[in-house]
């Protein structure tokens, strides 16, 4: 009960407070920008060729304001917004009216989750294991080679690196497709052919994220391990005749991993924002471009829908990490 009263309840209150505050800021920010979704649509109608008399334009503005639910004061809109939100309804997209925001996110989210969960998990796991070993066996030739590779790869701008991969593997050797999440004509079905096709299209975007993410994890973990390796308890274990495997696995890497676990939780939380540059370079479907277009078109509801998911994702990841941290670090106790 002490844990519940002294830690869990205050932590949960903080959790919900952060979400409320984040969502409120997300509600306000689009309304403070000069981008007006109603006028965006009117401008587009004019640009498309509609010749509108002033009276007709005023009527259109009134109709669109009503359809988009932008009537009334911000306070009234804020009330309506929460009334919808507690029912899990983000409302309609302004730019892609009358499509519902929930539906637009539902189409894009699986692709983002599929790509980013896998690439984050792989780059974290491989980067930390290899980085940990390289940090311990720091004088070995393979360790120095990997370190040099990571030093070259890591500073590369992601866009450039991704395009180099695209050029090499999609154009020069043509092992992978140039663009898209699946082939032209491929219809989503739960068949091995379709899954293979999706995996084939995901390979390059995933590879770009894994290599760059892995290089970062490699370098950080290598440094952490080098620091832990210099700790007196590790030296004592070596002098005490503890086997090398045990020292590396139990004494060094496990201790060095703690900050990396925090980083992993934050990375998983950020997945809901999408990976916009990956989506642009590889033409991969996902939340990133959806969010970008929502921002440029002043599509308040869609911006709020995606950002709220991201806020909830990050705060929940941190909450889970906080609550489970004693399992990773025995020194931490909520008693």
């Amino acid at each position, binding site marked *: 009960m002490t844990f519940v009263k002294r830690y869990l309840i205050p932590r949960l209150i903080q959790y919900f407070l952060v979400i409320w505050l984040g969502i409120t800021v997300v509600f306000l920010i689009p309304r403070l920008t000069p981008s007006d979704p109603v*006028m965006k649509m009117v401008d587009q109608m004019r640009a*498309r060729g509609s010749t509108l008399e002033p009276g007709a334009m005023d009527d259109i503005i009134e109709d669109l304001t009503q359809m988009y639910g932008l009537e009334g004061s911000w306070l009234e809109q804020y009330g309506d917004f929460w009334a919808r939100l507690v029912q899990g309804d983000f409302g309609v997209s302004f730019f892609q009216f009358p499509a519902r925001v929930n539906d637009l996110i539902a189409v*894009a989210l699986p692709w983002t989750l599929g790509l980013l969960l896998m690439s984050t998990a792989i780059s974290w796991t491989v980067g930390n294991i290899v980085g940990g070993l390289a940090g311990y066996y720091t004088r070995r030739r393979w360790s120095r080679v990997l370190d040099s590779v990571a030093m070259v790869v890591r500073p590369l701008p992601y866009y450039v690196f991704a395009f180099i991969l695209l050029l090499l593997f999609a154009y020069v050797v043509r092992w992978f497709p140039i*663009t898209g999440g699946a082939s032209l004509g491929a219809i989503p079905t739960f068949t091995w052919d379709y899954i293979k096709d999706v995996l084939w299209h995901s390979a390059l975007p995933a590879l770009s994220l894994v290599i760059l993410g892995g290089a970062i994890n490699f370098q950080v973990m290598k440094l952490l391990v080098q620091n832990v390796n210099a700790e007196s308890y590790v030296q004592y274990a070596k002098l005490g005749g503890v086997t090398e495997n045990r020292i590396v696995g139990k004494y060094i890497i496990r201790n060095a991993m703690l900050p990396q676990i925090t980083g992993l939780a934050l990375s998983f939380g950020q997945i809901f924002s999408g990976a916009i540059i990956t989506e642009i370079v590889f033409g991969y*479907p996902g939340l990133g*471009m959806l969010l970008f277009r929502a921002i440029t078109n002043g599509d308040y509801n869609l911006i709020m829908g995606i950002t709220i998911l991201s806020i909830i994702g990050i705060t929940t990841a941190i909450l889970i990490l906080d609550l489970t941290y004693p*399992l990773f670090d025995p020194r931490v106790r909520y008693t």
Partner: protein
Amino acid sequence: MAHEISRRDLMKLLAAGASGFALGPVTFLSGNSVEAQDAALPGTFPREQTLIARILTGRVGTPDNFNEWVGWKNRDRGMQNLANEPLWSVDFATGEIVNGLASGDPTYSEDFMTVTIPLREGVAWSDGEPFTAADVVYTIETLIAFDGLNGHEFLLENVESATAVDDYTVEVQLKVANSRFHTTFLDRWGCTWIMPKHIFEQQEDPVLFTHNPFVGCGPYKLHSFDPQGAWTAWEKREDWDKSPTGILYGEPQPQFIIYQYFADEGSQILAQLTHQLDVAELSANGLTALLAQSQSSRAYQPTFPFVVNNDPAITGICFNTARAPFDNVDVRWALTLAIDIVEYTSIAVDSSGTLSPVHIPHLGPYPDLYIGPMQDWLKEFTIDVGDGETFAPYDPEAPRRVADLARSRGYVFPEDDEFLAKTFGLGWYKFAPEIAEKLLVKNGFSRDDNGMWLMPDGSPWKIEFNSGTVLANHDARNAAAAVQQWKKFGIDATHFLTESDADLVAVGDFDVSGDWPGWEPWGAGPDLYRTLNQWNTAYVRPIGERNQGHQSRWTSPEMDDIIERLRETDPFDTEAVVAIGIEGLKEAVKNMPGIPTYGYVGFVGWDETYWTNWPGSENAYTQPYTHWPNFKYATPFLQPTGGA
């Protein structure tokens, strides 16, 4: 209680959770089946029978919704350009208005209160139902009845009633006289399209109806689409001869046409180099890179300047005439004469733009009807420099000087007058900084010790030139060139790139912008009402409010009078329309609310591996863009190669 879970257990739980997350999307996709799609796998489309083009407006957000009468539905993914047919459409390459579902021009009553529309016989919707006047009447009545449908307000305000006189004639009674009412049905990358009555009348709410599969009168029908919006595939109708395209031009050649999303230029280039994209739309550098690498790609023009230079828009500089000192015509002319157009176009478009001295582009019918006949007036036109001195600013030699610079830089192109006029235009304005100086001094401007211009109140003259953030777009290209020219002239000019450009310009919060100096004309036919009407006083709003007319907020009683007379003129009376249109252009030149520079330049790369006979400059049988509505009219002319 936490210590009851071991770390090993936790790791197992995490592994299970991660697997679940990873498999989740695939499971979700498996349940995301799509209506109206045949079982299709990669390779369904035989490449030699398939044409692949790019969706200009990006990934489709609502791929299963084809109701183009509601909001925005990425209609350039094949709806407007293959499967739909308007009453009329604009072809800016030929300068003609194409009769689609209409069989000819509309006729107006003398008081412009009634318009009669003749319809084409023998047309059928893609599901086989015949197209008749009932469809047109139903469309007008439905759009009036539902305020969620595009075009609702215009038709509600204008239409008293619509009647089918017979199966192929519609008569529309108007509430107010409107000599341009029919242009709401004239497709220029958008218009009021005709609904299939037999489909829509079965729907309770046409606003929420998804119109899937799409039913239209174009020569193609929906084949399949990507639920993520990356591509839409269309198939030639078996009864293509019942579409206006088939009736007018014959059988479309590609069996399938796919519009595909490409997020960036790099992937477009790679796709065309590997023959996976027949039509690429690129930047100047992108086109250069493509032509350098590809043996099978061609540009719109076979020689320099390679670009598409007949897009119906005139680019340039737009002044905010509601803000000092741009409310002063002398200042606007001074800034015009401070520009060396040869250097300017070299910076902006590598000398590839076609100059126009008036506020319409040099293309289609405009050189013959307007720009050519205005040459004498332009040569005689003078501006008052002060102290009784006048200056004739027009320079018919400017295009030749642009051509000379291009040639001196190694570009090779024909030297005949016809090519030079078509490519570089008929004239522009002199580079006369000394006259610009006089105009400014006349209005109280002065220079400081460093030669920089000061405002009449003695403060430094700063000009902020707004544009969007995409440097390849023509607003930014004009901004870069103008800022360089004005800096050389001694003005502290800066280029302000912002995502909010359109919003700032709309409320008048800008000095100068890269918005078109004149509203885009139709691009076909003689009528300039679309351009001139934007300078109507009725549309001008105070700074801070959204303007409803041209972004410059410029207007004049003389222009209002010209617009009024144009409204009272039959749009099909070419002689009368042109006479008034020329008056309108002269009024704009005298006041120079924006500086017209060069016509919009586009960069198209066509791969000739699978398809040839593209509508290039040497054979411009129709407009060249696959995203334009009348791309369907090009499909009968394309020739398959078999991929050899």
